[in-house]
């Protein structure tokens, strides 16, 4: 079974369902629009900021503010790509056609990841440029130190969120269960753990908090994270790898 055949088939699958278009475009639109809005509000707030706040003002990171919401659509994309197979029962037909389950899973993930990466990267650049346009005189430019890394990192971050969701969905199979765990995890639990000082040490090792460091250009004033931007992304990659390994191991030995 040539992997290219499976990749081709997975591409047909992914492009022929409406949820792909909906979730990805929602992720892009929400990220860009919310980023613009918050950039605009931040620009207005500049006048009332303390010098300390002005010092740690990070125009690049602010233009990515929409990602906290946009990533939820990315999670839905990742979950649906994998769990669609299970919720429809298509998985049996697919696995009967591709008895090599590793080939099947990783071809599917490769196609979905590539698509998510293209959309994420474009979203990241658009969010950056439009956000900077809103920030006006306080904006950063792509040529500034660390900015290009942050913008590329924004694309990587969103992609990894999607891949992490795919891994979790491959483990849990049910779309409802996967979304029911991932949504509150990224939207609530991570934020709560990160904002309570007692749990902050733990919270900063969660995939989204660690990964989002890559989008920061100016470190916040009370920065005490023990890793840098790439270190943070590395931590996120570890999370993703664990999720994928779990999904693969379960698919390999489980009855379909």
């Amino acid at each position: 079974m040539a992997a290219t055949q499976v990749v081709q088939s997975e591409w047909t699958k992914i492009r022929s369902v409406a949820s792909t278009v909906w979730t990805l475009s929602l992720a892009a639109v929400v990220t860009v629009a919310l980023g613009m809005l918050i950039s605009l509000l931040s620009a207005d707030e500049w006048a009332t900021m303390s010098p300390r706040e002005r010092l740690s003002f990070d125009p690049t990171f602010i233009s990515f503010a929409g990602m906290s919401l946009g990533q939820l659509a990315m999670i839905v994309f990742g979950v649906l790509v994998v769990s669609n197979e299970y919720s429809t029962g298509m998985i049996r037909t697919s696995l009967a056609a591709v008895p090599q389950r590793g080939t099947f899973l990783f071809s599917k993930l490769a196609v979905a990841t590539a698509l998510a990466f293209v959309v994420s990267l474009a979203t990241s650049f658009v969010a950056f440029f439009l956000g900077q346009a809103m920030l006006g005189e306080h904006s950063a430019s792509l040529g500034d130190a660390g900015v290009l890394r942050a913008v590329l990192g924004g694309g990587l971050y969103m992609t990894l969120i999607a891949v992490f969701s795919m891994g979790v969905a491959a483990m849990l199979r049910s779309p409802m269960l996967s979304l029911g765990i991932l949504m509150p995890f990224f939207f609530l639990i991570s934020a709560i753990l990160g904002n309570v000082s007692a749990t902050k040490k733990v919270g900063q090792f969660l995939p989204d908090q660690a990964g989002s460091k890559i989008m920061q250009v100016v470190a916040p004033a009370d920065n005490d994270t023990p890793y840098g931007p790439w270190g943070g992304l590395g931590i996120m990659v570890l999370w993703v790898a664990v999720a994928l390994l779990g999904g693969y191991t379960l698919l390999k030995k489980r009855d379909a």
Partner: protein
Amino acid sequence: MIEAVGLTKRYGAKTAVYNLSFQVRPGAVTGFLGPNGSGKSTTMRMILGLDNPTSGQVTIGGFPYRKLPNAPRQVGALLDAKAVHGGRHARNHLLCLAQLSGIPARRVDEVLGVVGLQDVAKRRSKGFSLGMGQRLGIAAALLGDPQVLLFDEPVNGLDPEGILWVRNLMKSLAAEGRTVFVSSHLMSEMALTADHLIVIGRGQLLSDMSVKDFISANSADFARVRTPDTEPQQREKLSAALTEAGGQVLPEQDGALRVTGLPLPRISDLAHGADVRLWELSPHQASLEEAYMRMTQGAVDYRSTIDQRSGLQQEMPPGAMPPPQMPVAGQGQPGWYAPPPPQQGGQPFAMPQGQPAGPYGAPAAPAAPAAPGSTGGPNPYAQAAQPSAAAAQPAASDLTKPEDAR
């Protein structure tokens, strides 16, 4: 050729399939029969390498499915007609399956034509009826032009034309020398389609023989004999006389007798000789369905009970009696095989009322009017004289009541 050897599958404490060994040969349609939950689908999934057997093995052409080179070109399967993404076009669904095994896209249009879905190829399968879904599933199975075909309940939801089409398709596929393995719980359908039968119950093999052998082993003629209900001693007398003459006599639930081993005229003569009046003497043939049910009755997992509706019972108007319960074949009555008598409660046949009293000799059709709401008295003729009784009857029974009985 599919070969299972000692196939066993346990899910926790439940054994779905136990020590199943069989062969499915090429060039014939092999029917795979069993009640719901008997392990048919589990076996199918194990053949396709989707579930791992707890012990034993199943091979196709000598290979376990997962080791088959280019499996989708050798084996085609329809497992579940609804196992498609509802938002995907029929054509795209088949296209992604075709691409998996390197089948060119024009083959997709071919099979769409074969199953008659070419006009809805660009429609989302969400809107498909069960029958259309079955056709789509069959199209997917045919994609790779495989030598081995598995169909799990392919005729579910198909219209009579579709059933006939599937039947002919299976036969022609087998005639081309392919191995065709079809599961069903409809014995009657399999009797028409299959050449060979494998019957399982509770995950164990009950029978593995050709349909011809199955029919000759299991279908026997018998006569139904009925003596006046009012005189039980006549029944005993006739029983003794028939047994003495070499017949086998089995009592039926409704008080009739099932007689085998004696021709009808002889039974009549014996009754006459014994001075016993007969209310019924009719020829019957035990259908394959009946033979199959007898074979699997010990292995049925899900059996319905009679719905007493006591939770819904309303108080009856004074004088009215609840309508008599009409036993339904298969409901809570494991021993029920023969068709129910045309009417319940010792009434004579309904012929004088102009009603077709159930086709004789065709045990499948209890076509008698469902105890025609005659709650006022046991005899419908008595009712005609007192039409006021009809007012006390529930409305529903009015609908089923023969017109001329009012």
